[in-house]
């Protein structure tokens, strides 16, 4: 008996009982099921926790079965926890193993047994399997995981191993929002390359607020990034591929507010958040902590005169709620002392002295733009 195919995104029109539609990156086109096919490189799959309602199913196909017969097939966790060794060391090893499994281990549980019918040549049609004991809901959190399944068939009441398959699974909180799509322009399907980054940065986030906060923090605290007023990663489209390349390269790079707003919006929305990039105009700022700056270094507290500044808004301007990965505000009221605060889900301006706008702008109107954006990713 052989496993031939495993389909995770077997219903591209829905994410309620199967995987999302994703692509590797903007140049590759959609990853089309089967994500696992004998003799071919394995493709990743992604699930949106909050979109799932009811049982999650996969589909699989087999060969080498009984000609014209029926067999019960299932898959169990192929990498179960090892038996715990005795003593303190054994306990420590078990704890570490449990932590690693919590964040990177199997999230899909096991493949429930189903009867598979084989044709006269011993091949099966695509057969639907229900996942059991899976932890995608309700406690799933942002993560990139490896699921190893040991496939078994039943013979005379005994389960016989016949195959092991390994799958890369991303877990996001909701169906990705704009610029990401689930149909249409394949270059705007969620990129696995971007999921790698977003899931690493927001690992463990259980809520959209936590996810957006972690993405904002990582964009702001990249030690290889520094601020320059020029948009370096695209103003019409967002050059996400370039940003990811520079982040992973370890070499220095510069970025401005638009680049930061694009990174925060695009990566957060990949996890299910609903942020948008929005500008406001004409200002001289109060001192703020520059991108990746050391709050204890007075030289890192800077003042700029800007034509515009761009940040992330919850949905649109009407939410009055913002994130800014480009800077940290000074919340101190004492001259010569600074208290850094990363703007995360902060009120833009409701008249309070500690709102984002009065903490950022010293002089100037800060007039809002008329539209918010979700820049197309390239």
């Amino acid at each position: 008996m052989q496993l031939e195919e495993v389909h995770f995104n077997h219903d591209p029109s829905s994410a309620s009982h199967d995987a999302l539609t994703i692509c590797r990156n903007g140049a590759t086109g959609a990853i089309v099921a089967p994500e696992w096919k004998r003799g071919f490189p394995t493709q990743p799959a992604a699930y949106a926790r909050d979109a799932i309602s009811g049982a999650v199913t996969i589909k699989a196909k087999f060969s080498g079965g009984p000609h014209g017969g029926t067999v019960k097939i299932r898959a169990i966790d192929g990498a179960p926890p090892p038996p715990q060794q005795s003593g303190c060391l054994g306990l420590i090893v078990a704890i570490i193993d449990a932590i690693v499994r919590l964040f990177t281990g199997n999230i899909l549980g096991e493949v429930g047994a189903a009867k598979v019918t084989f044709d006269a040549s011993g091949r099966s049609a695509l057969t639907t399997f229900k996942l059991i004991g899976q932890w995608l809901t309700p406690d799933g959190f942002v993560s990139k995981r490896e699921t190893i399944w040991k496939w078994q068939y039943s013979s005379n009441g005994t389960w016989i191993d016949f195959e092991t398959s390994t799958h890369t699974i991303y877990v996001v909180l909701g169906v990705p929002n704009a610029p990401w799509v689930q149909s249409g322009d394949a270059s705007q399907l969620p990129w696995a390359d971007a999921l790698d980054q977003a899931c690493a940065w927001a690992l463990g986030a259980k809520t959209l607020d936590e996810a957006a906060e972690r993405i904002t923090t990582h964009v702001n605290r990249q030690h290889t990034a520094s601020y320059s007023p020029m948009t370096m990663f695209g103003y019409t489209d967002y050059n996400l591929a370039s940003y990811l390349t520079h982040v992973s390269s370890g070499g220095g790079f510069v970025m401005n507010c638009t680049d930061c707003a694009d990174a925060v919006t695009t990566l957060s929305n990949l996890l299910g958040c609903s942020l948008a990039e929005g500008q406001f105009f004409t200002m001289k700022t109060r001192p703020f902590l520059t991108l990746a700056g050391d709050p204890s270094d007075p030289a890192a507290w800077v003042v700029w005169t800007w034509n515009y500044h761009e940040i992330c808004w919850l949905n649109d301007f009407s939410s009055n709620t913002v994130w800014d990965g480009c800077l940290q505000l000074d919340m101190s009221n004492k001259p010569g002392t600074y208290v850094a605060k990363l703007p995360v889900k902060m009120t833009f301006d409701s008249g309070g002295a500690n709102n984002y706008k009065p903490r950022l702008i010293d002089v100037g109107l800060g007039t809002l733009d008329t539209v918010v954006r979700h820049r197309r990713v390239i």
Partner: protein
Amino acid sequence: MQKEESMKIIAPRMEAARRRGLLLMRFKAWAARVERGTLSMRESLGGTRTRAVWDDPQRPGARIALTVTEHPSAVAAMNALADDLVANQLATLPPGPPDVGEVSFAHPPGAPPAVFFARANLTVWVTSFGIVPVEVDDVARTVDLDLTATPAGRPGTLSDIGRVAGDAYVKVLAPGAELVKSDGGIVVREGEMGQVQVFVVD
């Protein structure tokens, strides 16, 4: 920087740029003559925009990026430069080195050094790109001089354009004429076809 502001400086230079008689085709950022540091990264950024990064081996963290976008004509490049600068947060950008480009702008003191200029049908950004700031005026000057220089060797013909491969690019010279890219070829306006010189630069 608002487009109306940059166009106040760009518009008066438009006519001279239009008649410069210089066109570059398939030019990539990494083909630029940068004599400082080691070429460490090449990026195609979509459309005709490319970026290359040079690292200074003597100064860890010191990097220069060159971002080049090819446009159909010098006039298009001048307008595109104004569009590019809209994506710069600063309210105003001072003029860049006077001998760089048809027109150039620069970051003011206190900002990471950067020069933005238009030359022929290219817009070119020369930016300090690492966590250690690097002066870029000299780099911009060298790059621009190389863009405008007449290549050594005998010129080829217009048919050579279709045979260019790899990182080679085409430099077309026709002093006094307006050169415009069109469907893979070149339209020569207000000039004589006979005066057109085509160089393939490897």
